[in-house]
């Protein structure tokens, strides 16, 4: 396997070590552009609805190297972080951790964070 950067011209330098959205990134409060200016593909964008479980409160345990609950128990062992939980459209405006439970993620944040 080659260890060099991909030689494709499409990926920017920054994208070649893509990082996901920062946990404390501020959501944009800008309104949509007028019809005709807004990209057509965004017309059917709808607020994500909470159809699944609310993601659990957690802290990260540096010793166990997993997310844990208030009692220090790994969430994946208590069922609190059930990967079947449907929160992909969780879009309550709080952002929360919903983006981390999307079933596919965008590997880079195009804006400086």
């Amino acid at each position, binding site marked *: 396997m080659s260890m060099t950067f991909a030689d494709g011209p499409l990926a920017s330098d920054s994208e070649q070590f893509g990082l996901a959205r920062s946990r404390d990134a501020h959501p944009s409060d800008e309104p949509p552009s007028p019809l005709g200016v807004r990209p057509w593909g965004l017309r059917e964008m709808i607020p994500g609805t909470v159809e*699944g479980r609310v993601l659990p409160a957690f802290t990260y345990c*540096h010793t166990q190297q997993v997310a844990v609950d208030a009692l220090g128990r790994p969430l994946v062992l208590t069922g609190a972080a059930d990967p079947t939980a449907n929160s992909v459209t969780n879009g309550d405006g709080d952002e929360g951790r919903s983006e981390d439970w999307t079933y596919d993620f965008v590997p880079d944040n195009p804006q400086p964070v």
Partner: protein
Amino acid sequence: MTVLILADEFDPSADQMVLQLQGRGVPVCRIDTAWFPSRLSVDAQFRDGRWAGPLRTPGRVVELEEIRSVWYRSPTAFRFPAELNGAERHHAFMEAKFGLGGVLSSLPVLWVNHPARVAAAYKPVQLATAARCGLTVPDTVITNEPDAVRRFAAGGTTVTKMLGANHITEESIRKITFTRIVHEEDLADLRGVDVSLHQFQRWVPKAHEARIVAIGKQLFGFAIHARSCRAQVDFRADYNSLDYEPFDVPPELAAGIGRFLAAFGLVYGAFDFVVGPAGHVFLECNPGGQYGWLEAHTGTPVTAALADLLARGATS
């Protein structure tokens, strides 16, 4: 020799992997790049032709030369002091990215997947590569010309889908869209098509969809059956209506997937296909696609297979 996992602090699949590797007695170090610089420091020195030295976190110290493999899951952006102005923040971000990203990217170990390979997998490149690899791909047009949209749509049922992320945040609200069928009323008002590129594809008649998770040379097929109209068009639109069923990947399809992975230098991929009268029709490959919910529903040991690969530190 340590398995390095680069992941967000909240990532159930990464949690499962940590427990899996620890259970096998395989040293593992999990890092979120968001810890840099307050909780992650780097002392990388170039010697004997490679980068060596420690990465220090609150719970671990891992030597770069002791890393056997890296699972590049979905680490999050660095966090810098709030006091930095915008230019300073951007400078610090990029220096950290080129520095830490560059040091890590140069490690001559197994990457699942190497981030630069992930970055190269743009959707139009994927379609062209898939076709070259013998996979069937849908008729597709990418355009910002309204007349081209109408011309293509006149040829049959058409869907539109994003080339990149299917969600945005505006008005402080997270908004989302899915693959959807283009109707006559859509075609009657195409204002905004010219603003950027849009992707349109011919609707592929489907019995169901399938996600095939490739881990090294192992393939795990999952048929995804939709019980709602929304999920019939895009399974992501209604997870509550889905049923899952493992299946064996046909040899010819497996060969095509293998060629695709090799073409991009990937060792992991989550492939999505439409399954119908035309056979398996390639939609896309997500080099970082999820598998946790499929494993949970079917009991297929995907985490164990990925742990095997990471612990082995080789692709074969």
